[in-house]
Every structure is written in structure tokens, then in C-alpha cells.
């Protein structure tokens, strides 16, 4: 398992795509940091109060985090999908699985390696963005660790889904399904909030169920909460429409949801192992 995990990390490090992505991330951080700093300067010049500036900057930071969350989710999907699928299709898996290793070790090793890559990218992009904005505007989010943790967890959900699908369907199809699931989960979050605001209990229940079925949006709310100044939550409390806003969170995801998400990832991994064990190579 460790051999395969190491192999996966080495593979990611050797492939140019990851370095290109990192370079683009640094450019994005530079541009969004510069833009946020410029906006804050403009607001100050226009006579905005520090509180107003802090609220503006926090919202821009959340939008930037959403951009990175999307990039990370797509990266996880399109790195996770071919990890198994391409090995099976190309024949690389034939030589590997003929060795005295369990298929579960091979799959979990692949997963561990990719989780490490995704976590490093989440931490790098998240902390760089937070650091750049802090440096240029003086704004520091209340829970940066929590935000980056949820950012990585969301990507791990996508990664694990891609891995499960990759044991049975071609990589490109697995990646596409993940993108659709990511979008649907996000929309379910919006629908759940709107339905609750308008007391549409049945729709809210269905949308909530969808968010639990695929927990990427629920984890995204954890990112938002980690980046949002407590003041914003206090100001917005009582405003039910606010809950429909995917860039706003009153509270962090409840512990039951976090536990469910971890269980969901473990369950999906178990399904992937089960699927690969039964797959003829």
C-alpha cells in the first residue's frame, strides 16, 4: 500500500500538469490578492469604514476560495478518475496486480497518494490566498485552518468518487460524472436554503437529502464558515434568505454531518475496493 502511495505521489510530482497547475495557482493568488488590495484601497478612499471594508474583503476571499474549491474539485476528479481506470485500460495494472499485492492495497495506496497530493494543493492554494489577502488588506479570516481542512475534505469526496467510478468506467466518463455530481450537490445546497426560506418543507427535505447523499456542498459551507468574520454572521442572523446564499454560512457543518462525511468517504472507498476485487483485469 505504501509502495503504491509513494508511486502515486512521485507520479504526480513528475507530471507537468501539476506544476502547471501550481504555477497558475500562484498567478491566480497574485491577481486576486492584488485585486482585493486595490478594491480595499478604493473603498478606503471613498470613505468606507473599516468594518465595511472587512466585510467586502471577506466576501471576496470567500469567492476566491470558491474558485480554488472548484479548481481543486475538478483536479481531484480528473486526477482520481484515471488513477485506476487508465492503469486498467493501458495494461499497467496487469504487471502490477500480477505481483503479490492485494487489490485493496493497490487501490487504497492510489487513494492515499492522491489524498496527499490534493491536501498539499489545498493547503498551498488556501494558505497562499489567505496570506496574500492578509498581506495586502490586513484582513485575517477567523478559522483559516478549518477553511483549508474543509476545502481538502471536499476535494477528497470528489477524488474518492472518481476513484470508485474509475474501477468500472473509462476515466473521462468518471471525471464527467464527478463534475455533474459536484454541480448538483452545490445546486441542492442553494435549493435547500431557498426552500427553507419560503417554508417549502418537502423541497427542503429532498434538497437536504441530496446534500447528505453527496456531501461536497455541505463541506463547502465549512470553508465559507471558516473564512467569514463572526460579525457578518451576527449581522445576517435572522435573515433566512441569507441561508440560500451558497457563499454564506450561519454555522459550521454540524459534527453529525462531518462524521457522516468521513463515513461516506470510507464507504465509497470500500465500494471501490469491492468493485476492483470483482473486476477482471
Amino acid at each position, binding site marked *: 500500500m505504501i509502495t503504491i502511495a509513494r508511486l502515486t505521489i512521485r507520479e504526480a510530482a513528475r507530471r507537468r500538469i501539476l506544476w502547471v497547475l501550481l504555477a497558475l495557482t500562484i498567478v491566480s493568488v497574485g491577481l486576486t490578492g492584488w485585486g482585493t488590495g486595490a478594491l480595499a484601497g478604493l473603498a478606503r478612499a471613498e470613505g468606507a469604514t473599516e468594518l465595511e471594508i472587512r466585510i467586502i474583503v471577506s466576501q471576496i476571499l470567500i469567492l476566491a476560495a470558491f474558485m480554488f474549491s472548484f479548481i481543486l474539485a475538478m483536479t481531484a476528479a480528473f486526477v482520481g478518475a484515471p488513477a485506476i481506470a487508465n492503469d486498467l485500460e493501458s495494461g499497467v495494472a496487469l*504487471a502490477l496486480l500480477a505481483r*503479490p499485492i492485494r487489490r485493496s492495497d493497490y487501490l487504497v495506496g492510489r487513494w492515499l497518494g492522491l489524498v496527499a497530493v490534493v491536501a498539499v494543493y489545498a493547503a498551498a492554494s488556501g494558505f497562499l490566498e489567505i496570506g496574500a489577502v492578509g498581506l495586502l488588506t490586513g484582513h485575517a479570516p477567523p478559522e483559516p485552518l478549518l477553511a483549508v481542512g474543509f476545502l481538502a475534505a471536499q476535494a477528497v469526496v470528489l477524488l474518492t468518487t472518481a476513484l470508485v467510478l474509475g474501477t468500472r468506467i473509462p476515466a473521462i466518463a468518471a471525471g464527467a460524472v464527478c463534475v455533474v455530481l459536484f454541480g448538483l450537490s452545490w445546486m441542492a445546497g442553494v435549493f435547500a436554503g431557498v426552500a427553507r426560506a419560503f417554508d417549502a418543507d418537502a423541497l427542503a427535505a429532498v434538497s437536504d437529502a441530496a446534500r447528505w447523499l453527496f456531501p461536497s456542498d455541505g463541506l463547502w459551507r465549512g470553508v465559507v464558515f471558516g473564512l467569514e468574520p463572526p460579525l457578518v454572521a451576527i449581522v445576517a442572523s435572522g435573515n433566512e434568505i441569507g441561508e440560500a446564499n451558497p457563499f454564506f454560512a450561519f454555522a459550521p457543518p454540524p459534527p453529525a454531518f462531518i462524521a457522516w462525511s468521513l463515513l461516506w468517504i470510507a464507504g465509497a472507498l470500500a465500494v471501490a475496493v469491492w468493485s476492483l476485487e470483482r473486476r477482471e483485469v
Partner: protein
Amino acid sequence: MAGSGPAVETADLAKRYGRVRALDGLTMTVERGEVFGLLGPNGAGKTTVVKLLLGLARASGGRGSVLGAPLGDRPTRQRIGYLPELFRYQPWMRAREVLALHCDLSRLPRSEWPAAVDAALDLVGLVDRAEDIVGTFSKGMQQRLGLGVALLGAPDLVILDEPTSALDPVGRNDVRAIIREARERGTTVFLNSHLLTEVERVCDRVAIVDHGHVIEEGRLDDVLGDPGVRVQATGFDETALAALERQFGALRRDGDWLAIQPFDPSQVPDLVAAIVAAGGRVHEVDAGRRSLEERFLALLSKGGDRTEPVP
């Protein structure tokens, strides 16, 4: 070599893919230390056999053992080297790294890795390309690398699935030498191929598989049968023919060609002299054993479709 009994043994091994029978009661035995060739036309089930032996696919019926353990037994795979027909290795790795990875996966003690990797590189002629990225290799070089991977750490059994499919004549000659060296070390070689001349040159025993079952198995000499002779001759009558038959045995006539089997090749001058003495003219003599290709085609000519749906 550890263990006793055959290196590979299967009895009524069956494999179905949906309604298609890939293997239909395949029974064969590969003795330890021999080079065994599994022959068959495309779609006969050769690669399926290999995948079942390695546990890459599961049998639908029958039983089998490899090095004394059930098919696909994980610890036993430590003693097996395998070159897949669809050989492909991590294109982003260096050749040396691929070999080291397989040392790790086959649980070779780490202290033995450098020597094992160097020996494999030397064996397959890739010493000069050891530090090159596999993605830059030609297909032939990748197949050589795959052969090196299969032979890492001197396994007890090496399964080679079409090992020369991407090689030039020099490469094929090298592979034959490598197989012979492996046999001299006591390694059992299971060679899966449709290149009959390759098989004929290196194999001790062969099995010919068609429609998912073995239609002929045995030592190469036995499979090929007794030597015979074919003579293209004209200008003699039926009486002379009867006299030849009395002297040399039953004759088969096909146009100008006479065929006698069995026939002792040392009697060729006597046969030619007898034809000439009877007034005949000899145009060509083809003495010796039937080639594996002739035998193979003769056996397959009885066959039909390559796969059969389950009734």
C-alpha cells in the same frame, strides 16, 4: 527450485464471458524446469489461460494449481515473473526505477535490489538506457524492459505472453537465448505465442489450444510425429509405384508429389535411386519432419468458429 509436482496443472478449466466460452474444459500440465509453449490461433483462449493462472481473472469452472498452490494464490505470485501481452509500464519512470518498483512489489529484500536490477538490465540489453524515461522507449525496448521485469529476482516460473511480438529478428534471437538461459537455471518458462517458429526453437513441450480446450499436448517430437519425405517425380508408371510401396512403405500421391510417412531420412538416396531406376525423373526432394506450422494447421483444419456461445 522449491516445491514438487508440476509447475502448472489445470483440469477442466473453464471461463465464460457472458455467453461466450473463452475456455471450455482446458486440461494441461507443465512440468517444472521445462519450457512449455501454449499455441493457438487468435481468440483460442491463450491469454485467458495466463490471466487465470495469475489470478487476474477468475475461472468459471474446473480447477488448477501453479507451483503447487491454487490459481491466483497471492504469496505464490512472489515466485512468478510475468510479461503481459499488453505490456505497458509507467511512462514517466526511468527503466531502472520500473525494475526497482517491481523488486519492491515482489518483496525482494532491499539489499538485493541493485544487483537484481543490474542483472535484469544486462540480460535484456538495456544497460545503456537504464536512466532513460520509459515513455521515450520504442515498443521493442518496452518489451525488453517487460522481459527484464518478468525475470527479476530469478523467479521459479516465468509466464511470457507473446514475448517477441514487438521485437526485430535480433531481439527475437536474444529472447530465445534468454529463455534457454532461464531453463538452464531451472526456471520453468510458460510461453504463450502464435509465432510457431519461435516455439519450435525453444520449447520442450507444447499444447495446442483451440475453441478453449487443448487439442494436442506433448513433447515437441511427439506432436510433430515421425519424419517423412516428399518427392516430386515424373515419368514412371503404376507398376513402379507399387514396387516403391513394397520397398519403402505406404505412398500418398498428390499430383507429381509422392509422400511417405514414416520414413527414415537416411533412406533418401535409396528412394531417389529406385525412382530413377524405374525410369522416373526426380525434380525435388523434401525430407524431414513436418514443421510445427504444418502440424498446427492440420490440427486446426478440423476446427470451426473461434468462440462458441453457451447453448
